């Protein structure tokens, strides 16, 4: 599904150049649930941004579902993002004046899905995350866990190839975190490929594979026994 070869990325900080990613080689198969771990400054967010086509790499190859991602125009990147990727953010990033259902329907708007169908699909995905009764509520009327579940429903509504989650539990207490992870595990069970960036050990162990980043290189890449979040809920 995802293939990365010798990926380099550096940022210019005034006169100094900060080499963040120093040759990453990395492959994700269909249906995997991968945790990307590392301390702050290890380059994990940069990697996720490049994977999410929100930032470009300096050199190296990146192939997503057989499509080479290179030198994309803004418009093309937007198209690919819409078609291939679903984002889940630490701070949820819901549009605050839109109801839960409208937030979920938004990626479909950019896929030019007709309004009626958008609404139906949005309700369908809200039901899957267990928030159908909250469909007409604004984000400000929802709890943190509920917001993240709306965000997950939104990420899935476009039926992307890969879900990218950047610290999805970073703003949540541990009980809510496990609820969200439970949901992510269930989505993964249905065959969706998911990448989770986290610095929490317990969250990482709820995935099927852990990739450790340190100083811009992968220091460890191991399959783990998945801990089901269900038992903590």
């Amino acid at each position, binding site marked *: 599904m995802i293939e990365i070869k010798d990926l380099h990325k550096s940022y210019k900080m005034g006169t100094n150049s900060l080499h963040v990613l120093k040759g990453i080689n990395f492959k994700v198969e269909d249906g995997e649930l991968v945790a990307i771990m590392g301390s702050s400054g290890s380059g994990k967010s940069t990697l996720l*941004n490049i994977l*999410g086509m*929100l*930032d470009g790499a300096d050199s190296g190859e990146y192939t997503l579902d057989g499509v080479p991602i290179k030198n994309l125009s*803004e*418009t093309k990147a*937007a*198209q690919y*993002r*819409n*078609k291939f990727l679903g*984002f889940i*953010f*630490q*701070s949820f*990033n*819901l*549009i605050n*004046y*839109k109801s839960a259902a*409208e937030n979920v329907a*938004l*990626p479909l*708007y*950019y*896929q*030019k899905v*007709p*309004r009626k169908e958008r609404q139906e699909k949005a309700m369908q995905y809200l039901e899957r995350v267990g928030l159908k009764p909250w469909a007409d509520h604004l984000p400000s009327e929802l709890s943190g866990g509920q917001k993240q579940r709306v965000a997950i429903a*939104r990420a899935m509504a*476009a039926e992307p190839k890969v879900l990218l989650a950047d610290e999805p539990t970073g703003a949540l207490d541990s009980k809510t975190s496990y609820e969200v992870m439970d949901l992510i595990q269930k989505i993964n069970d249905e065959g969706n490929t998911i990448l989770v960036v986290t610095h929490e050990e317990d969250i990482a162990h709820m995935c099927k594979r852990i990739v450790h980043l340190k100083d811009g290189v992968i220091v460890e890449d191991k399959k783990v026994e998945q801990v089901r979040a269900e038992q903590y809920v």
Partner: protein
Amino acid sequence: MFDLERWQEIFDTIRKNKLRTFLTGLSVASGIFILVILLGFGQGMRNGIENEFKQDASTSVWVWPGVTSKEYKGLNPGRRIQLVNENYAKANTMFDDDIEYGSARVFVRGVSVNYGKEALIYGVQGVASDFQFIENAQISEGRFINYQDEISNGKVAIIGDKIKKDVFGEVETPIGEFIDISGIPFKVVGVYKEMEDREEERIYIPITTAQRTFNGGNRVNNMTFTLPPVENFDKAVAQAVDFKNGLRQYLQQTHTIAPDDTGAIEVWSAMEEAKRYYGLTNNIKLFFWFVGVCTIIAGVVGVSNIMMIVVKERTREIGIRKALGAKPWSIIGMILHEAIFVTAISGFGGLIFSMALLEIVGPNIEVDYIMNPSVNFNVAFSTVIVLIVAGTLAGFVPAYKAAKVKVIESLRDE
């Protein structure tokens, strides 16, 4: 533009951001409103000044003799010029085609005026029947001097409304009462009204009576004429100037006055005076335009500011939309679409409201120098367009920048 989905998205946004939309709309609408009202009152002042000029017939020309100041053809300066009946008659025949109404005037001096035992101190003037039209005097009771009075030396008098109030307060009407002028009884046959009290303090008697009864001979104190109306103002001014110069030339020749001795025969034309006022109102109009343009600029700045703040406020939303797959141009388009829509609706709202106000209230305004304020629809309409275009341009720059911002940056936690 005709993308129904886009419209729905915009209406959603507007419905859910009522305050923001309202404030944007209010600033645009009030800008337009103030501008239209200002322009309207500029026009109103112009109308009002034109109206003030209707006091005396606006085409009137007045001739006053004076004293020569230059030596000419062997005659010394300092001669007092005396107009006579023949001058008036000759002027009438010479400029017959150009004159609408005319009247010579005689000031009867050194006479005592009495009503019963009361001595009156009002001026007595001998005038012709047409003088009524020259002064624009309104006859409130009775009649003015007529031709019959002139040929029969009628002992009749027309008094001003103020005299009626001051002197004839005790009788029901002054008509039919007699006043004595140097012991000769004159019958009051009419009362006239003027715009100003001062002009109502005169007693008019037929000019022939004034000359024959009070030893006036054929002497005339001044002459007044009105010119026939023409369709436009510039022509009227040209006509007045021509007439004035012709008349002066004739009078200077018959009285042997140097052509450049303007003090000896003064000819004054209301039309030229009016032209100066027209110039003044043009300046006023210019001033209101200036104020109006400043208002538009303030409006443009205001709208631009609001657009920038709106876009700034929506940076995060733009980032989210981009992450969800919105193309840059679709974001710019959406923001501008909304901006144009709100500006246009509120702009035309302000336009309609202000024009309706001018239409309804305008005709009822009765203040000196302001009459029926109104505004040219095309001007107001273009102003709205200018504001919309300016608002759009002002919104475009930040929207373009916002669409180009890296998603990661716009989504960064503050």
